[in-house]
């Protein structure tokens, strides 16, 4: 393979990985703090995608509509997430894992059919927005600008979230609740509100990813299933609850997906799962997670 093709593949893999990082970061934070593995996270992402499509297609006469969608769609998704958390998830925190899985799985069913009701089964596309359409020449090679934009977004979100967690009082509160719910409660922290807030943050990230992905791909039913599996793999590799882990995991998965087809094409689909199994066996808390 030529250098151009190699870097092109790597970059495209990493940019998809960055979008997956956003979703996986949400999943990881939600698991780290609420101790719930949210199967419906992919569905939240998909809803974000559909909202992006609706806004950009129905309001196409507004210039720069994509950027407005990028501003508002994730907020709407976060609100939906908040409603879900307050009405449904709150009641099952005390229960066993099995019931949490099944409940969030039910949300996949409900969300999926709701999207089908409003948007039908076909796939929709969103045009790459100005000014990040077209290609950029770097080191004599040409890359789609949007891919680089996505990588930039991923890095910005990662740094921003890490800063939020480490340097703000809000971040300290979240970290306190993550570390020990009872003690945080005893210190007067309103734990249920923190839970709702974290879930909304996770949903916001998924909605953001959902809005960023369509120009590079399509908006379609079934994207929730595909995405949630990839995110599981990412958070397992990186470590459930670890933000840098999700970032690292996303890059690894992006590269694995981009290059796996060149190594053994038949098994390419299975590589991520095999890596997942290896990590779960030898180091279940992931590359950057902490053993419990």
């Amino acid at each position, binding site marked *: 393979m030529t250098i151009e093709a190699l870097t092109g593949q790597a970059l495209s893999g990493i940019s998809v990985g960055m979008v997956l990082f956003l979703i996986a970061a949400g999943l990881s934070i939600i698991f780290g703090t609420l101790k719930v*593995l949210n199967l419906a996270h992919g569905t939240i992402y998909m809803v974000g995608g559909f909202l992006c499509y609706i806004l950009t297609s129905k309001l196409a006469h507004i210039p720069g509509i994509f950027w407005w969608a990028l501003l508002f769609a994730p907020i709407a998704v976060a609100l939906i997430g908040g409603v879900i958390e307050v009405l*449904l998830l709150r*009641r*099952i925190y005390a*229960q066993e*894992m*099995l*019931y949490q*899985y*099944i*409940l969030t*799985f*039910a*949300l*996949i*069913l*409900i969300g*999926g*059919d*709701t999207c*089908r*009701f409003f948007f039908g089964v076909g796939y929709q596309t969103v045009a790459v927005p100005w000014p990040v359409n077209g290609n950029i020449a770097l080191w004599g090679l040409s890359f789609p600008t949007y891919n680089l934009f996505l990588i930039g977004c991923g890095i910005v979100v990662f740094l921003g979230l890490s800063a939020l967690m480490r340097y703000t009082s809000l971040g300290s509160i979240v970290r306190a609740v993550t570390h020990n719910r009872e003690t945080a409660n005893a210190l007067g922290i309103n734990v249920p509100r923190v839970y709702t807030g974290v879930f909304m943050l996770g949903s916001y990230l998924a909605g953001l990813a959902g809005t960023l992905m369509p120009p590079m791909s399509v908006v379609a039913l079934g994207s929730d*299933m595909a995405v949630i*599996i990839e995110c*599981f*793999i990412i958070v*397992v590799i990186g470590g*459930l609850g670890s933000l840098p882990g999700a970032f690292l995991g996303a890059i690894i998965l992006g590269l694995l997906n981009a290059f796996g087809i060149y190594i053994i094409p*038949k*098994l390419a*689909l*299975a590589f991520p*799962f*095999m890596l*997942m*199994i290896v990590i*779960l*066996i030898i180091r*279940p808390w992931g590359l950057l997670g902490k053993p419990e």
Partner: protein
Amino acid sequence: MILVSLVLLIVPFVFSRSMVSLINEMLIMALAGCALNLMLGYGGMVSFGPAGLYAVGAYATAILLTKYGAPFFVAVLAAPVVAAIVGAIVGWFCVRRSAVYFALLTLAFAQIIWTIIFEWYDFTNGDNGIVSIPIPEVLYVGSNIYYFSLAIVAVCIFVLWRIVNSPFGATLQAIRENPMRTEFIAVPVRRYQLAAFVISSFFLGIAGSLFCVFAGSVFPDYAHWVKSTDMLVVCLLGGIYNFAGPIVGSAVYILISKVISKNTTYWMFFLGIIIVFLVLYMRNGMVGFAAEKISRLRNRLDAGKGEDES
């Protein structure tokens, strides 16, 4: 139990052909549910992988019948054996971890099985599935296929019932309640969990094989984790802490999904709502719910009797 068996025996004479077919499906799902519940309800091991073992059984029978022209009984008998072997390999890896990591491992393995079935075109026919499987003609006479399923399912469920009520079953439940304590009384916890996994896989393989015979075709989606969640819902619907739970759950689940899908194309939405209702209000499933009500009634009657006597 005897009443139910009698009813099941005369079903083909009373009901229409499509109803018999439906009950046939319920029986197979009931077996799959009971097999899964050995791990889930009695062992406390949440697995996202039962569909993988189920598909292994189905494909084993399908491939033996089509590619190798094996005799029918060999193909059907081989399925649980193959499934148990795969279950042993997968289980060996999975039981090394517990709780959420165990679940994720089973998910990963199930998806690997799905990928192998999907990609290994030469062997499994990939995403086309295997269709027109040569099932012996005699099974298509009258309701013979129904009795075939009924006989095998009945025997298997009886065996599972014996396993659950044996010392093995009791130890498994002890492990479910408190693995650490059970380890302290010198029980090899991992070995018991692996045994439960393999037994579960064995019966899941039979269920898969029966479905292959029933449907005459197999597809990779039999192994997908979404199918696994169907089985989990079946167990939960009936109640994971009662032996009859998955059986009741299977009947209700298949009935509901057929009824709903006949009336609306958005059946997944309604199924989701039902599941939410189930998780929030009926965690012990229908059998658990019924058992609770019956025991409360009994207590009230006994209390009344006590007062009269004193």
